[in-house]
């Protein structure tokens, strides 16, 4: 009987949690629709026109509405991230998901808030690729950090062996 209540409670909590996230997202979409204009920008964004080569210079006229949309999206993604942190996922899966979301958030901040979407291509190409490549190159040190994991596996095998040798008693 206790188990049933536990499952019901979990379902309610999950419902509230999902409701909050999707409610927030739906609310923002409704607001965006009400504000108009934004739709066109999202479509352009999805079409891959992130770096608009036709943008003449920094002062292309664009409305404020898309900035509200970006803000809402950033808040929603943060909520999803916090939710993920409590889902007992595999560490690697969580790392990849969190970093994926963070990269999307970073792209939104750089593209819209920091105006990169509206800069000339020459400006973007001067600033972005070199920075991204330099940061990605920092990855090369990671193989050295994996040594501890191999060490742990060996240690666990040793422990299993010593436990069986000692007749099941904990060492």
């Amino acid at each position: 009987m206790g188990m049933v209540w536990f499952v019901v409670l979990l379902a309610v909590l999950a419902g509230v949690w999902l409701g909050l996230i999707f409610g927030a997202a739906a609310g923002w979409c409704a607001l965006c629709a009400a504000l108009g204009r934004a739709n066109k920008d999202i479509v352009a964004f999805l079409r891959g026109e992130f770096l608009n080569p036709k943008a003449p210079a920094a002062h292309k006229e664009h409305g404020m509405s898309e900035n509200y949309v970006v803000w809402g999206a950033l808040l929603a993604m943060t909520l999803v991230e916090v939710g993920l942190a409590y889902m007992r996922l595999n560490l690697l899966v969580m790392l990849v998901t969190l970093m994926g979301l963070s990269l999307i958030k970073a792209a939104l901040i750089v593209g819209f808030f920091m105006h990169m979407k509206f800069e000339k291509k020459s400006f973007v190409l001067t600033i972005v690729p070199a920075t991204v490549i330099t940061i990605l190159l920092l990855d090369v040190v990671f193989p050295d950090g994996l040594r501890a994991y191999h060490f742990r596996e060996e240690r666990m095998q040793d422990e299993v062996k010593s436990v069986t040798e000692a007749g099941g008693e904990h060492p």
Partner: protein
Amino acid sequence: MSEATIQPTEHAAAPAPAAGHGHAPAPTGDVWGGGVRPYGAHSKKFGMWLFIVSDSITFAALLFAYSFVRMANLEWPTPFHAASILKSTTMTFVLLSSSLTMVLAVDRANKKQRDKASFWIMMTALGGLAFVVLHSWEWIELIHEWVQPAKAANGGVLPMMWGTFFAATGMHMLHVTAGVFYLVGLALQYKGGKFKPIDVEVAGLYWHFVDLVWMFVFPLIYLMSTKIE
């Protein structure tokens, strides 16, 4: 910065767009030959971007160091309980919202509304201040319940994560604090008739960058180490 030093560069962009069709400034191929503006951007903006490039590599190095140390250790503490996550999530929302107010400030500055721009810059600084206060609170609680210097003195070993945690979040805090001073100074002087919209835009770039860095610090350090009871 006097008018004379800014005006020539502002107008140097004018000959570039051929009849406003948004083509490259000089189709003859001497875009990079000097005397024109191949980036079509103010020098101050480009300068701030160069700072952001170097600063982003600094922060990346700190976060990579954190990740490396975490990978290389068999045990890793997960000290961030619900109250801590609640605080850091609020901090994230505050920082993201202060980015929005900064966007509003730049928008009003470009519309030549000095008072409104100044007001929104002040609101941004207020968000930054709230972030600093919340984060300090968070630090103090962590020091009380987790870092425990007294224990460390007895055992001689500081708990794991002390160095990397305070290095990464401390560096970010330093940037937010510097940003608050930068913004308050700018808001007061901008209201008084000093500076141009481009200066607000450049300050905005800095502020959004500080926000952007937190978008990596928060999940990597806080969310990857939540205490789930």
